C-alpha cells in the first residue's frame, strides 16, 4: 500500500507495524507529529498499545525502560534537548540491555536556540550503548523502524534511528507501507528471556562490584560487535520479503572512483544528484553513505575505501575543539590500512543548525578536496562568513 507521508508519520507507521505495546513520549519540535500520530493510533485502536503521556523526556525514557524490563515491545521518540535530557536514562537502557527503539529527529542543540537540523544531539549520545542508524528518506524510515526492533531484540541492545529535522520529518514522500501480515512473520512477538515476573522473581540492575562490572560491560561490547552481521542478516530477510534493503554503509557509483563523498542522512540524496551530474561529464566520483554510526562500521569502511585516492567527509556536526565527528571516526578506522592503500581524507564541517547543503556547497567541497595537496589536520568549515 502506497501512501504519501511526512517522515514523522513514517515513524508512526513503522511503530504500528511493529505492534509496539507500550509507548511513552514527550513532545518536542520537530518530533511532535510522531507523538501526535501515535496518540491518534492508540486512541482509535489501530495500534493497541498503552501510551504514557509523561511530564518529561527523562521520564519518557524511564517509563519505556520499566515497560521493556517487563518483557513488552516499547518505543519512544525525541529530539535535541529532549534527547539530551534523556541522556542518563540512555545509559541505563544500554547497560540494562533493554531492546528499546527510539527515533531521534535530528535537531541542533542550544545555545543559541535553533530548531533546525544537525547531528550534534544524537552524536553526543554515541557512548551510551545505543546502536545509531541515520536514515536518508521516508521509505528507509518506515522500513528501518521495523528492522530496528528485530535488531534490538536479537542482541538485547537499544536502537536509535535518526531522521533529519524538517528535511525528512516534515517532508512528504511516497512510502510503500509493508503488509502487516508479512511484518508479523518478519517480526514475531517479543520473547524476553529475562523479565520482571512475579512467578520468577529476579533483581535487575542492582549493585555490581568491581569483580563483575567489567564483565558486564564486556558482554555489552560483545553484543554491539555483533550488530553489523546481525543487521546484514536482517536486511537480507527484509530484501527477500519486501524487495528493499539499505545496509550499514551504501556505496553509490563508487566503482573506480577517484573521489568519494562520505555522507549520512538526507545530504546523501543531494550528493547522489551531484555525482550523477559529474559522472555525466566523465568525472570518477561517487558517494559512500554511512548509515550506522554505532557500532562504527570500521571494517566495512576500510574495505570500501581501500585504495580510493581521495575521500571527502561531509559532517553535519562538530565536536568543538576537534572537528567533524564522522571524519574523526573514519580517520581512526582507516589508520590500520597500509600507507599505499589509505585514502587522503578531507573533513568538512557544514550545514549546522539547518543551513542548506545545496549542490553548490557540495561542488565547493569537491573543489577543495581536489585542490588540497595534503589533507588538512583541521576539518574545513564550509560556508562560514566570519
Amino acid at each position, binding site marked *: 500500500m502506497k501512501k504519501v507521508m511526512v517522515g514523522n508519520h513514517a515513524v508512526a507507521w513503522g511503530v504500528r507495524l511493529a505492534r509496539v505495546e*507500550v509507548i511513552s513520549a514527550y513532545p518536542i519540535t520537530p518530533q511532535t507529529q510522531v507523538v501526535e500520530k501515535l496518540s491518534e493510533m492508540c486512541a482509535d485502536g489501530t495500534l493497541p498499545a498503552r501510551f504514557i503521556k509523561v511530564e*518529561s523526556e*527523562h521520564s519518557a525514557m*524511564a517509563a519505556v525502560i520499566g*515497560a521493556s524490563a517487563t518483557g513488552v515491545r516499547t518505543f519512544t521518540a525525541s529530539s535535541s534537548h529532549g534527547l539530551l535530557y534523556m541522556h*542518563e536514562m540512555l545509559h541505563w537502557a544500554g547497560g540494562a540491555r533493554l531492546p528499546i527503539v527510539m527515533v531521534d529527529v535530528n535537531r541542533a542543540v542550544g545555545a543559541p536556540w535553533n530548531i533546525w537540523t544537525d547531528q550534534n544531539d544524537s552524536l553526543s549520545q554515541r557512548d551510551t550503548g545505543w546502536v545509531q542508524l541515520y536514515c536518508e528518506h521516508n521509505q528507509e524510515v518506515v522500513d528501518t523502524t521495523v528492522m530496528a526492533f528485530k535488531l534490538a531484540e536479537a542482541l538485547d541492545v537499544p536502537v536509535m534511528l535518526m531522521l533529519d529535522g524538517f528535511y525528512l520529518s516534515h517532508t512528504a514522500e511516497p512510502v510503500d507501507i509493508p503488509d502487516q501480515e508479512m511484518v508479523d512473520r518478519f517480526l514475531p512477538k517479543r520473547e524476553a528471556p529475562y523479565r520482571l515476573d*512475579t512467578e520468577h522473581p529476579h*533483581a535487575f540492575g542492582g*549493585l555490581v*562490584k568491581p569483580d563483575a562490572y567489567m564483565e558486564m560491560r564486556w558482554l555489552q561490547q560483545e553484543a554491539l560487535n555483533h550488530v553489523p552481521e546481525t543487521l546484514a542478516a536482517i536486511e537480507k530477510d527484509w530484501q527477500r520479503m519486501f524487495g528493499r534493503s539499505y545496509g550499514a554503509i551504501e556505496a553509490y557509483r563508487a566503482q573506480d572512483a577517484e573521489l568519494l563523498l562520505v555522507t549520512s542522512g538526507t545530504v546523501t540524496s543531494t550528493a547522489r544528484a551531484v555525482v550523477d551530474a559529474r559522472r555525466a561529464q566523465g568525472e570518477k566520483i561517487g558517494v559512500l553513505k554511512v548509515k550506522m554510526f554505532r557500532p562504527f562500521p570500521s571494517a566495512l569502511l576500510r574495505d570500501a575505501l581501500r585504495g580510493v585516492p581521495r575521500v571527502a567527509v561531509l559532517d553535519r556536526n562538530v565536536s568543538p575543539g576537534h572537528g567533524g565527528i564522522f571524519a574523526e571516526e573514519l580517520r581512526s578506522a582507516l589508520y590500520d590500512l597500509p600507507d599505499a592503500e589509505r585514502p587522503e581524507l578531507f573533513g568538512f564541517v557544514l550545514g549546522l543548525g539547518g543551513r542548506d547543503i545545496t549542490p553548490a556547497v557540495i561542488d565547493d567541497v569537491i573543489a577543495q578536496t581536489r585542490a588540497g595537496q595534503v589533507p588538512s589536520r583541521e576539518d574545513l568549515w564550509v560556508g562560514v562568513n566570519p
Partner: protein
Amino acid sequence: MSQVRIDQLIPEGKLLASGHLACPGCAAPLAMKLALNALGPNTVAVIPASCFTIISGPWPQSSLQVPVFHTAFATGPAVASGVRAALDMQGKHDTNVIVWVGDGGTFDIGLQSLSGAAERNENIMYFCYDNEAYMNTGIQRSSATPWGAWTTTTPAQFPEASPKKDMLAIMAAHGIPYAATATPAYPADFIEKVMKMKQARGTRFMHLLSPCPPGWKCGDDEGLELARLAVQSRVFPMLEVEYGQRWRLTMDHAGDPVEPYLRRQGRFRHLNAEQVTHIQSEIDARWAQLQRRLDAETLAAV
C-alpha cells in the same frame, strides 16, 4: 490506637530475607518486611537510588523475594508507570507495582516524576521512607531535613535553615485516591494503611518516618522509640487523606513537648533553648493548621 493484632494482619511469608545490608537499627528493612508481607508475593518493586539500593543486596544476591528493578535516582514513578502499563498489556492487572525510595528521591530529585505519575493517577503504590537526609552518601541535607538539624552539609554552626517540605499536603493536592503517613514504630497502623493501599486503585502514596541511627546520631536501639516520640510530640502526625479532601488522624497525638525528642539525637545537640522553643512553636502552628484541615466528624471518631 489500633486494636488489630499484627499477627492477624500479616500473612505468613518471608519476602525480605535475612542477610540484608542495612545498618544496625535502621527502620527501613522493618518497614519493607511489613509492607511486603501485607502486599504478598504478587508484587513488583521499583527501587531508585537510595539506601535500599544497597540494603537489598549486591548482584547476584537479592534479599527481596519479589522482582526488583533498580533504577536511577529521579525515575522511580516513571519506571513504575512503564511497568504498570506493560503488566496491564499482559493482563496482569492484579500485580502490585510499588516504588520504594528515600526522602532525597521523593522530596527533591524525584518530585517531578512523582508529581507526573500522581497527575496521571498511575495505578501504583509509592512508599517514601524518610530518614530526613541523604543518608546513603553520608548524611547530607535534603529538603526533608528538619529546621535546625545538623548534617554534613549543614554543620552545627549553620544548621538546616529551611523548614521541612509538607510532602503529604503536596501529594494530597494532586487529588490522588490515598495518601498517608506512617512509621514502622506503629506497625499495626502501618499495616492497616498498606492494606488500604492494596485495595485502592490509582496512585497511592505513603510517607514513612524511618529513623536512621547513624544520621540521627542516636543508639541502634533507639530509632523506633524516637519515631514514637515524633508522633506523640506532633512532629510527625499520623494521617490519611482520600482524594485530597478527607483528612483524618489515624492515631492519637498527645502533644508531648518536643524537647525530649530533640535532646536524644546528636543531630540536634547544638540547639539552644531559644531554638528549641522556636521548633516547638512551629510544631504548634502546624498542628493548628492541620486542625483546620481535619474534618470534625472524623476527628470525633479517633
